[in-house]
């Protein structure tokens, strides 16, 4: 029997089916996707990671991931057929880590590297030990007390970024310019952090980091790290944060390819991503590395041992890179195919409501639906539902993807899409409370 089963830990990204079909048609190889999920979070992860309306039925097997007997029993019918094991979401890495020792004869990351790559404090410790220039100054804090603030002020200088150690993206991430802002921000984060961990199905103990704010432009690179430690990089993506477009928030407002970086800077960005992967001892994974181009060189913001959000669509449209399949092939020990010739300009944009509260009206969708560059627009919230900013555990109201080989048309459509929406929100003390 051949190796034809791809195991997805906890959940599968909806784009996976089309990505696999493309690969199957190109190569004649056929694969069966199978989800293996921890029983304890099966329902919540399906809800959170959009598994209830997948375009294709997928075999789901479940097990108690804390029981070797349960995991081995669940895997037994598939063990001889498994081609690769992948975790496509940040909130599935804990379960990937638990599965690693059950696949000793396949390429897999080390268990500890997955800890290091998901806990921001550990990540910074390792990055700093590998190369101090990779990361800004930081400190872990356990409360908003005067003592904690004094320790922060002794270690880093304002302005500072406050962020949970174990949450990805911009959840509960805030900027503080002075002592008073730091105190109120820490109080808020410590009030909300458990909710954030619960919402995103994170199993770690909540912790908070305060680090020096880096001034610069944000980019990301997804890097395929082979089982032998060969690093192969995708082209950089230019990231515009919510903060840059006027929100008091640091979510990734827009992700765009091409990045506009020179060949020299692309090389530097990819080298920095590679150093970050080495620092964490990653292997047999795709690493999503967020970077900041500062006046003092390239710095690492975050790293996740999985493909970046929207990156499959972005890379496929702009370069013809089948990112989801590359991730799987790389984990199986094969060489990913990474074309770099630009086919189209592509952007994904998250549109948040300008205020938090109960959404009463969201207008402008029909304008966006008419755009020539439109790939998709998803509406995640409807009138009557509560909306919140990213830093307060909220999601965007709309997600848009635009792509066009005609740069003029692309930029025209981007301008329309960014200005098309208007909202009416009934203000509430806290939308999610």
């Amino acid at each position, binding site marked *: 029997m051949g190796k034809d089963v791809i195991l997805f830990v906890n959940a599968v990204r909806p784009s996976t089916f089309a990505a696999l079909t493309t690969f199957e048609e190109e190569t004649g190889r056929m694969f069966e996707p199978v989800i293996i999920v921890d029983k304890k979070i099966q329902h919540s992860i399906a809800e959170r990671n959009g598994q209830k309306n997948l375009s294709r039925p997928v075999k789901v097997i479940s097990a108690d991931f804390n029981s070797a*007997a349960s995991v*081995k029993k669940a895997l037994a019918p598939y063990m001889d057929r498994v081609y690769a094991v992948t975790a496509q979401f940040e909130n599935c890495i804990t379960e990937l880590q638990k599965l690693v*020792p059950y696949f*000793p004869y396949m390429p897999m990351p080390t268990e500890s590297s997955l800890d*290091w790559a998901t806990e921001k404090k550990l990540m910074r410790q*390792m990055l700093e*030990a590998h190369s101090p220039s990779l990361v800004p100054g930081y400190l872990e804090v356990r409360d908003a007390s005067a003592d904690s603030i004094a320790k922060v002020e002794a270690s880093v200088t304002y302005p500072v970024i406050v962020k949970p150690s174990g949450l990805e993206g911009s959840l509960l991430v805030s900027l503080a310019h002075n002592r008073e802002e730091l105190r109120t921000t820490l109080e808020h984060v410590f009030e909300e952090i458990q909710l954030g961990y619960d919402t995103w199905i994170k199993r770690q103990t909540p912790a908070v980091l305060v680090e020096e704010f880096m001034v610069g432009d944000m980019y990301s690179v997804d890097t395929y790290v082979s089982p*032998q430690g060969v690093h192969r990089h995708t082209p950089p993506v230019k990231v515009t944060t919510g903060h840059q477009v006027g929100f008091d928030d640091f979510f990734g407002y827009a992700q765009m390819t091409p990045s506009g970086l020179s060949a020299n800077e692309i090389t530097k960005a990819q080298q920095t991503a590679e150093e970050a992967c080495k620092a964490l001892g990653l*292997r047999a994974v795709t690493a999503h590395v967020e970077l900041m181009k500062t006046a003092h060189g390239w710095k690492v913001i975050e790293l996740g041992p999985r493909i970046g959000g929207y990156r499959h669509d972005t890379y496929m449209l702009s370069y013809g890179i089948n990112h989801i399949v590359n991730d799987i092939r790389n984990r199986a020990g094969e060489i990913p195919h990474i074309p770099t010739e630009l086919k189209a300009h592509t952007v994904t944009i998250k549109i948040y409501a300008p205020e938090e509260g109960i959404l009463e009206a969201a207008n402008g969708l029909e304008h966006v639906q008419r755009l020539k560059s439109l790939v998709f627009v998803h509406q995640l919230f409807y009138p009557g539902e509560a909306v919140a900013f990213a830093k307060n555990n909220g999601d965007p109201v709309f997600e848009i993807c635009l792509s066009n080989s005609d740069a003029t048309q692309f930029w025209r459509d981007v301008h329309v899409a960014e200005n098309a929406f208007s909202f009416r929100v009934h203000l509430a003390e806290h939308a999610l409370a």
Partner: protein
Amino acid sequence: MSTLVKDGSKNIAIFINDFYPELPIALEKLSKKLGRPLKGIMLIDKTAYGQGRYHPDTEHLFDEIVCDFTDPGALRATVKTFEQNLLLIDGNSERSQPYFKLVLPHVPYVLAPTESSLEWATHKGQMRALVGGYNPELVPRVRVIRDDSEATVSDILSNLELPLIVKPTGLAASILVNKVSTEAELRETLKQSFAAIHEVYARDTGRWEPEMIVEEFMEGEMYSVDLYLNQTGYSWALPLIRAKTAHSMGLEGFYEYQLETDVTLDETTIKAGQAVAAEAAHALGLRSCTAHVELYLTATGWKIIELGPRPGGWRQFLYESAYGVDHAYNGLLVKVGLEPEDLGGEPIAYSLIANTYAQDEGIIEAIDGIEEALQLLSVIDLQAHYGPGDIALPSGKGGKILADAKLSHPDKDQLLADTAKLRKHITVHTKPHVKKTK
């Protein structure tokens, strides 16, 4: 061929904590095979170093790096200094496994076991659960216990059949291993074991919280086999070694009284034993290591007693003198993705290890007969590990080996005659050990 072998820049071999004299010889052979000079480095945990819990490289044949293994940042910075040239890494002793586990995630691009497999293989309770889950026929029924309460005793008696073996989960070398045949013996042994276990764990740096396992006693003969497992799980087995326990010789304790290369088993039984050992290694997901597997040959087939992700003690001598197999060299070959070169065919000699433990508790006055024993034709080496003034304890009470002798001779009769003489020569004189009372 593995990329590690082909890449001429890979020239560093790391050994964790414990140095053994066979390592530089094996590394030199590997160097000749690969056609490039190789450098050995002892990577030693700072705490183990400070407490003297490591085998030093007294002749300084390898470089030495001391680092705090509990600080991931310190390890990362240390590993960065040699990772570009790293060819292989090895943890050769049972006690180095927890340290090896801490280093593993920092060296992801060399061939090595998973972190969890090292944990599973060295925790007797987890090992039995995983091997039993893989094939229930391979292990006896077992209970893991943390106290000697009435509820614990009741649980044992209602789930297991006497006689039973009581042993700690996190200690090696048959320390605190006892057999009980009655409920009264069980209660007394549990009481004594839990009274002594904290002290023995502290002395021997036992792992995890002190706990015991109680398992059904297996009637049979004890053997061991060392395996090589490559990165895909393919295994190569060496010849079986017969282990005569003290219990089987009518003495107190379950320590290895004598290890013998002459097993007198038929080929089918040997193959079955080697296959069972490989099954156990696969049950624990072991790879890219040497595994030492202890087995019992019972009336109902081969059973697993213990398994360690490292070479067995004295095996370098036993396999080399009896079969011409360089065990350490084979282990290094597997670590770089190559096949072991010699698995031993017809024996070139008969070899054995004769161990001496204390039979009674007391203070050692003298260990006599060593000089006479060294004159025997078959005796290659004889080491006394304790001397006058040291406390002698039976193994069942936490005592360790007092003396071990290596014997080998092409003539089996000569070997057996010399072994009998050696046993007569070596005598341990003790006087009563009066414990201070508070």
